[in-house]
């Protein structure tokens, strides 16, 4: 079994209203000195069998096409267990 984590974040130059709302709330709730909060998506994907290079390549492609929108988002992909 393989487990892959994909984190998708808005590109740094794109407005992140969600992160801003969280930043404001953290401040109001007494956490000081928060300079930035960005909120993204966290996918945990489990696959049966081993993650061979074909499937790894497919995952990488789909992380950029399906899980994220390259016009506004970046992603990072981490293989936890191959």
């Amino acid at each position, binding site marked *: 079994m393989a487990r892959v984590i994909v984190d998708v974040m808005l590109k740094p130059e794109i407005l992140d*209203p969600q992160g801003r709302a969280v930043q404001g709330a953290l401040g109001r709730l007494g956490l000081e000195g928060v300079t930035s909060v960005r909120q993204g998506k966290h996918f945990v994907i489990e696959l049966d069998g081993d993650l061979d290079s074909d499937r790894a390549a497919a995952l990488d492609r789909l992380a950029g096409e399906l899980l994220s929108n390259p*016009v506004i988002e970046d992603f990072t992909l981490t293989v936890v267990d191959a």
Partner: protein
Amino acid sequence: MTIDTVDRAESSPDVSQPYADLGLKDDEYARIHEILGRRPTSSELAMYSVMWSEHCSYKSSKVHLRLFGEKKPETDALLVGIGENAGVVDIGDGWAVTFKVESHNHPSYVEPYQGAATGIGGIVRDILSMGARPIAVMDPLRFGPLDAPDTARVLPGVVAGIGGYGNCLGLPNIGGEVIFDPSYAGNPLVNALCVGAMRHEDIHLASAKGVGNLVVLYGARTGGDGIGGVSVLASETFDAEGSAKRPSVQVGDPFMEKLLIEATLEVLHAGLVEGIQDLGGAGISCATSELASNGEGGMHVWLDRVLLRDPTLSPEEILMSESQERMCAIVRPDRINDFLARCAKWEVEAVVIGEVTDSGRLTIDWHGERIVDVPPRTVAHEGPVYQRPFARPSSQDALQADGPGRLARPSTPEEIRAAVLALVGSANLASKSWVTSQYDRYVLGNTVLAQPEDSGMVRVDEVTGRGVAVSTDCNGRFAKLDPYAGAQLALAESYRNVSVTGATPLAVTNCLNFGSPEDPGVMWQFAEAVRGLADGCLELGIPVTGGNVSFYNQTGDVAILPTPVVGVLGVIDDVTRRTPMSWRNAGDSIYLLGDTRDEFGGSEWAHLQGHLGGVPPRVDLGQERALSRVLVDGSQSGVIRAAHDVSDGGVAQALVEMALRSGTGADVSIPESIEPFVFCCSESAARAIIVIRPDQESALLALCNDSAVPVMRIGTVTTDAHLTFGSFGFPLDELRRVHESPIPAALAG
């Protein structure tokens, strides 16, 4: 970072500037030189390039749009006309409404969710900037075929974006259109309309009056959004360069917009605002130059005071940024503290960025250095104007000659039944509830009619029941066959849709979606459509109050169907008198008003046969006016109990929609004088189906007689769940299944 100042521009006249990359032509750049008497600074170049883009300057369309003013009908209703953010009409009792439709086509193709969402955001700010509380939105949409792969990507995203933004603002969505045609496959149309209401005394204009008054920028912080978007995204096709620059996609923050609405209405009603302008395309460049140009003529801005989301932005970028959810207000110095306090209450950041002067110049400083010194009119209002060549395409004759007469026509009852069923289940005529159920139509508690009714209707005054109705329409196929008539048919349909609900049509807005203005054939379509619309409005006696032009809607060299979307707004004294679209009482009589002719050019039936040719249905605006009179008088006098417009798909489609809306059927008999298929499916204009109590027949005939509207009894409402046309019929279950399944089925998964 070296700053290009006015001093530097004077001392270095020969620096080469990337004006062409910014979309300026050689002669336009030369004109800037002439205006300034020197080369522009890079900030000035940024401002001129963005303000002189097609999107902001209307340089290709201006010469034609003038017709709307020249042919404006006599009316007392128009309080503010074309040229402001949106026109304002008097609806009586001291109430005024403002409405406008705008396009967000190209951004919605690149990023459907955000493109559509920010389209709603932009039009809502336009309405807000007139001093009105936004009270409803609508969304005329056009996509490629329902089964095209890109439609599955674009449509759900667009709908989610419109819903996501509009629902979060608390604005009911009361109507729109969803139309499919191959010509939109690579270039969907996402138009957004907003209606706002205000008391007469609350009308505000975008002008910077009063020397010494302060210029306040408030709302979201300025970021790198959509820089170059105006000139690159809107005036060239979207695959051209662009991506090398800052991201041209903007992300909307509807929560900020909601706060901006509440804060703005609060400062307006407290009397704290002298002039106000929204920030849309061209951002600060547009707002400052337009405010200055419309007011005292001078303004000074300290650009470094602008609150930034991204501290690395250069002054040129700040001037061009299209960050959403921002507004600009002119405030007297003695009221500024109150203004800022009310913004703070709504957690909206606000900062004074400038002041009104009588210098006749717009001057902008960046950390003490002068980077802009221009006459604001030359930026905002005296941009280039082109008389683009236009010519009727040589293919137009062949197109019109190839009429639908050559198509095999259904003639037996079985064939006609099948044709009707095919129409009922076609993408364009199928139920759009997959889309509309994602929109909140209830919020604000004033929605009297919404989809699938013929027009959206909202109550404006809870005490008197005064309200407005709005519809948007356009059949691009009619416009392709004859753009002059097509624009008039769009107007006529929208006018009729307002009339069937019992409201009196009052004013018109439009969103003119066309291909490239550099193509003489497209320019001809545009000129003809504008002429048709202007003539039509004059004949119907309702003025154009504003609108929007979207060019360069094409895939490669192939333009979209010319699509002049027309929105008509009507007023109704008492919304409890509205006419619903369908029957409720068994035994009521069903009538067809208007003449039915053999007219299938551009029809939905021909479209299903894969045919587009011939000429569109005949336009008779005198007849439309007469029909409207019958519908409105019949509603007010209580004669008419239900009324539904006959258009796409013809009489059969209209009756199916009525039966499905009510849940009970009708017995309809096809008159002997008409070929059955023509009766069922022809798309002749100036027609409506109405329902009355049987004992009201003489009253109805008198009404029709007075206005010379042809009238014919065609059927009776029944109690059972069948719709019959004499020799054939349908169980409502079957109709419902066929009508409701196509869009969910195509978009499932």
